[in-house]
């Protein structure tokens, strides 16, 4: 199936398919569900991490093959959810909340500060591959507004200067 992929296989330990450790991680989850299809979201999370934070066609094909699903079905799911990406992302992924509770406390200014610090537009990756950012809907931490998410961590009670410092200190 991977031969059919336009993106070309990504060099990984396990060849063009899923890396062995990703396959093992998915297998460990299999007994939790009565159907293979229910493994799709967990498997896509695993695959996305294995492919550096996004899902090229090869990753989608590999997950489809692993779970015995039609690739179109997997595409349909990938395009539905905001946390699955079909374009490359930075090594660090920044999500700035701009929904109302954060906006009331200056979330827009935090977004401006992040944009200004990185010098790229939303959804683009810095030239060194280090960072990408997007504005995001409510992340459920309004007590700490304005806030943003960097990779898996929440940072709250931000000022524009504080947000800039956090972004600059990312390796």
């Amino acid at each position, binding site marked *: 199936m991977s031969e059919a992929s336009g993106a070309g296989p990504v060099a990984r330990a396990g060849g063009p398919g899923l890396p062995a450790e990703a396959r093992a991680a998915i297998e460990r989850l299999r007994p939790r569900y009565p159907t293979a299809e229910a493994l799709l979201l967990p498997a896509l999370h695993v695959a996305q991490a294995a492919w550096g934070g996004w899902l090229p066609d090869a990753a989608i094909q590999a997950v489809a093959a692993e779970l015995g699903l039609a690739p179109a079905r997997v595409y349909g799911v990938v395009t539905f959810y905001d946390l699955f990406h079909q374009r490359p992302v930075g090594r660090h992924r920044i999500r700035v909340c701009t929904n109302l509770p954060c*906006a009331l406390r200056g979330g827009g200014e935090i977004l401006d500060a992040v944009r200004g610090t990185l010098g790229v537009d939303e959804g683009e990756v810095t030239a060194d591959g280090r960072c990408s950012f997007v504005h995001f809907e409510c992340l459920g931490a309004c*007590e700490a507004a304005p806030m943003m998410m960097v990779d898996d961590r929440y940072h709250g009670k931000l000022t524009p200067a504080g947000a800039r410092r956090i972004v600059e200190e990312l390796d």
Partner: protein
Amino acid sequence: MAFEPVLTRNLGNPAVLAVDGYRAAGGYRALAKALAMDPAEVIEVVKASGLRGRGGAGFPAGVKWGFIPKETESPKYLVCNADESEPGTFKDRILMESDPHQLIEGCAICCWAVGASTCYVYIRGEYVEPADILERAIAEAYEKGILGASVLGSGFRLDMYVHRGAGAYICGEETGMLESLEGKRGQPRVKPPFPAIVGAFGAPTVINNVETLCNVPHIVERGADWFRAIGSDERNTGPKLYCVSGHVERPGAYEFPIGVTLDELVERAGGIYRGRALKAYIPGGASAAILPAETSHLKMDFDTLAQAGSMLGSAAVIVMDETTCLVRATLRLAKFFNHESCGQCTPCREGTNWTEMVLARIEAGAAAAGDADLILRLTRNMTGTALCPLADAAVGPIRSLVENFRDEVDAHVRERRCPLPARPFFGNGGSS
């Protein structure tokens, strides 16, 4: 007598993250008590308590449990809704982070009551740290014999798994959540059949919010009468976490008997931001109608807020002071609903798009004559015409803007600009 926190009593006591610490604080006694009761008796206690769902709809939890068929060979499921995505809501995250075993205990009691032997906690994908905390707590609960082959040695088998979402507000809707759990796009199902009959994987399923389930151990341990004595009246019982955000000095989740007023909440949160005056507030998350300052004395419970034309929802209280442009605030919510509409039903897909567009031109000083009435017509066509409540949710704040704050909308249209002296939020970056 001063109200003693129930749900957040262990806040600030990290020992309860471990089973021993949770037990030392009185934990897992309720589960032992429930296992010694007949399951039907447990359902009766929860019914008698009057506990209503804390996720937004306020449906009586015990009644929902009672819908699960008893005489069936089919497996049954509990799906705990931890998809907390309603803008302004963060209580479930705090409950899971600070006291994960309270949730596990509530889930286990529910499973015993309805005869489910598998529980999925569907947690929003962004909650990576809360999911890790919960995973660790579940793993320890298995080690200590609280979950697994024989819950507390009772012979009752229960498996509990954390299932991560992937960023979609609609998956907080119960049938959208089931679709997502099954590995599909999170598009809500046609009801009936209701999940109690045909739910996860075609089997009878209870879906309850995190906070709802966290109430359950306390009800079982202290009794329905104790629970009913907390709150505003017979239909609005128990403790409640209110998420206070926006223009207050100390935003946070505050626990009160259900039916606290906005005035009391604002006082607890240190007053309105920088000593300004209150202008408006949203009592129940982005889906609730915006209420004017004059209503700040109302009891914030299910029925009082419904009578006032709004709703308790998830009790996400977004406070806006006198400097807030309500057209702009509502536009931000309209953008949210437009982004989150799953696109399945035409009135929602088109309606959320149109309402955002019309609000955007009013806000930008480019309104056409009659735009305020156009918004009212659009919201009428979106009400009750879609499969799930998302369109009705979008209508909540948008219609209330025109109905409750007509002068401010008309001033935008007439003066072709925001009539307020400054626009204090979004800074210079209106791009979001």
